[in-house]
């Protein structure tokens, strides 16, 4: 069985204008949503308390809300989580009440209504910790980008490094845009997923670049233009690209389906990230490298002139 029966090289580079336009539009949309709606940051970043409780029967949300509101803990959010038995309660940071007391108070209030209620999870993060996490997250993102650029520049050529990182940052922005648009919760685990995507989709660009370099060096391809060489490289790796990403996507989808609420955000970030990863490394990174003026000479160092003039 062979899924991809490609007779001729697909002229990917001639779609350059179209793909650039698509990328630009999605990118701008993502940035727009990021700014207009903003990320729905989890308590880890904003500070506050989140509690998960489970009832033996369907929970009466209105009753729960009433009980929580009566405690006067500020603007509390009460919503069901997955099933009707699970309830999520979100409380803002409060100055004079310690976190430990806060969740105990809520639980006592809920127990007064239904003794069967079970505390499943409490997460409290103080505001100072949240700020630190945001900072660390940004540092991690920067370090990942710089590290990858440095490695690719060393291993290939700076034009490749820059186009790969731009292509992948474009993925990251789109993932964030999706999270902003749908107001999915952005937690630390999601951040881990996003950074993992960054490392992963650079892979894709690496595989294509590897091929491009190999083709440049092949004597049989000397007569081909740079665009043709890139087309050939992409065409000959497309099968592998689809299969690998398909496999990873299968794993991630399995996490999305079976992983439950705790892994949902993480799996979602990866699902989107992998799909865009394929797109961007094939149709964004390579045209960018071309636009940056990559040439055969950049890849093949001219043989050193050993025979010096004999005097």
């Amino acid at each position: 069985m062979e899924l991809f029966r490609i007779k001729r090289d697909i002229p990917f580079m001639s779609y350059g204008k179209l793909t650039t336009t698509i990328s630009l539009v999605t990118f701008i949309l993502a940035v727009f949503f990021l700014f207009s709606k903003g990320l729905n940051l989890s308590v880890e970043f904003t500070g506050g308390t989140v509690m998960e409780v489970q009832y033996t029967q369907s929970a009466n949300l209105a009753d729960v809300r009433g009980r929580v509101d009566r405690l006067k803990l500020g603007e509390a959010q009460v919503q069901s989580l997955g099933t009707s038995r699970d309830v999520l309660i979100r409380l803002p940071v409060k100055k004079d009440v310690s976190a430990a007391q806060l969740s105990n108070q809520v639980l006592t209030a809920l127990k007064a209504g239904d003794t069967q209620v079970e505390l499943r999870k409490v997460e409290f993060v103080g505001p100072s910790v949240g700020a630190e996490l945001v900072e660390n997250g940004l540092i991690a993102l920067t370090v990942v980008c710089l590290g990858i650029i440095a490695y690719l520049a060393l291993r290939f050529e700076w034009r490749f490094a820059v186009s790969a990182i731009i292509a992948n940052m474009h993925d990251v922005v789109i993932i964030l845009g999706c999270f902003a648009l749908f107001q999915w919760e952005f937690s630390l685990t999601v951040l881990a997923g996003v950074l993992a995507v960054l490392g992963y989709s650079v892979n894709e660009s690496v595989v294509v670049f590897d091929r491009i370099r190999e083709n440049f060096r092949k004597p049989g391809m000397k007569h081909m233009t740079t665009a043709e060489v890139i087309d050939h490289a992409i065409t000959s790796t497309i099968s592998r690209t689809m299969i690998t990403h398909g496999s990873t996507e299968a794993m991630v989808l399995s996490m999305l389906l079976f992983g439950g609420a705790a892994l949902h955000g993480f799996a979602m970030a990866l699902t989107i990230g992998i799909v865009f990863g394929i797109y961007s490394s094939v149709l964004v990174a390579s045209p960018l490298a071309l636009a940056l003026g990559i040439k055969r000479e950049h890849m093949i160092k001219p043989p050193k002139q050993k025979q010096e003039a004999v005097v």
Partner: protein
Amino acid sequence: MNRYPLWKYLVIVVALIVSALYTLPNFYGETPAVQISSTRQSMPVDTAVMERVEGALKAHQITPDGVYLDGGSLKVRFKDTDVQIKARDVIEQALGDNYIIALNLLSASPQWLTKIHANPMFLGLDLRGGVHFLLEVDMKAALDKTMERYAGDIRRELKDKKIRYGTIRRDGETLTVQLRDQETLAAAEKAIVRTLPGLNLKADDANYTLKLALKPEEITRIESDAVKQNITTLHNRVNELGVAEPVIQQAGPNRIVVQLPGVQDTAKAKDILGRTATLQVRLVEDDPGKVNEAMAGSVPMGYELLDEMTPRGPTKILVKKDVELTGDNINDAQPGFDENGAPAVHIGLDSTGAGIFRQVTAENIGRRMAMILVEKGKAEVVTAPVIRSEIGGGRVQISGSMNPAEANDTALLLRAGSLAAPMQIIEERTVGPSLGKENIQKGFNSTLWGFAAIAVFMLVYYHVFGLISVLSLGVNVLMLVALLSMLQATLTLPGIAAIALTLGMAIDANVLINERVREELRNGMPPQSAIQAGYQHAWATILDSNVTTMIAGLALLIFGSGPVRGFAVVHCLGILTSMFSAVLVSRGFVNLWYGRRRRLSSISVGQIWKPEQEAK
């Protein structure tokens, strides 16, 4: 040409055997156990305790599955949780309050595995349930307290040296001492430099003032002491909860992490950690008449019958209800030795405390004074020394009839009565035990189904090479789990996600290889050379792509915190094992299968479609 030398096969076989051995403990599950440990050095858990426990269990017809001493604790295994809980009650009765008796789960893996340090993976709180706190120590309060104490010390010192001074003022981090003239200024400077080396002095000759500030190294010392003391206090409180494997450690300059795995009653845990213990100094009533009356059941008005903790078990002691002094006035308590070289506890009081103490001791020479630790309404006498003389100056020494271990325990308990500085919970994660179990199940299921989907696809698409890829992916899981078990790295839910993701990514290497082999065949290469060329060409790409993934993984490991770090550890380890399994192990399988055949006419990597043929 596609043959490995023997040593390469041996490396693979050894790696497989070691991985299998270290993965094995994870399959045995856990058995319920009761763990007995002691907080006091004077009461070690030894064979005597073991005999007492065994005797008590025998008396109640409970047969344990195993009893053994491990480090400073005694572990007793039981058949099921019912027996375990019954046994805990029996042991608690037999040993009394002096020991920490906790329910625990022990790995059920056989002894020989434990002997080679093959233990199951260490599960994080999100998988086993429990409480995680991050506490921040208020350093400003700790420094304030120290400055307050220094002000008292200076006052005392100047009085002792008969140096006349005006006022001692504290603004923030500096103390200003107003003196009369040049002469007293010089004398004061000399006295303070000698007795309080932790201070920086600046004399102002024009105004006859002395400005004092803490030296930077002194500040560092105070801060680290404050954290240490708070950790000690937390240890004491946690011990009361009966948690088998609590983690209490410093995290950063002013933070403390407390992790209590397996705690069922999280509300109680928070209560106990958050409360403040108080230390009280009260007078003891030794009048035989009153003591007998109290022992008979009618405690006189204004008195209280309390327990005194001695190494021989609790004894009753009658104390007055009037509190002379509280832990607020105690700055420090350290074990040490008295002038005769006998073990002693040194207590430092602040100026208010010193004044009161002088008065109380002056009026009660010959009587006993009890140091009482009050926690959650339960009062316990830590020590009750006899007052031999009037004690002024705020430096108290308790000595006599104790060994160094007891001195250590007493100092620790006294310190526990007063936190060096207030603490605040700045992060909390509580996971109920049922959610933990669910998380394991869900994490496992998603990995399993993902793996199955990949396996089916690889088999259908690449036939024998697909099988080899799946086998090496299996080896990857095995090695990753073995590595995590060996390192005893903490496995969390994001860690399980990382295992799944790593597998999804690791297959990339095999796909690269298989596609390359196909391509070489398509280009007309004979099978053996196609295998050789396929692996060779794919290697550079695999290395590159793994390095970039590794960069992301390492950055997460370094800058991540909490769940992110749990993810990153497994992710990085997974990248390493996948390089080994996808390249070396899969090649080993290929060589074993195809490498020996001289005339290999075809290899099974799925159908290879050639565009030329199709065109005709």
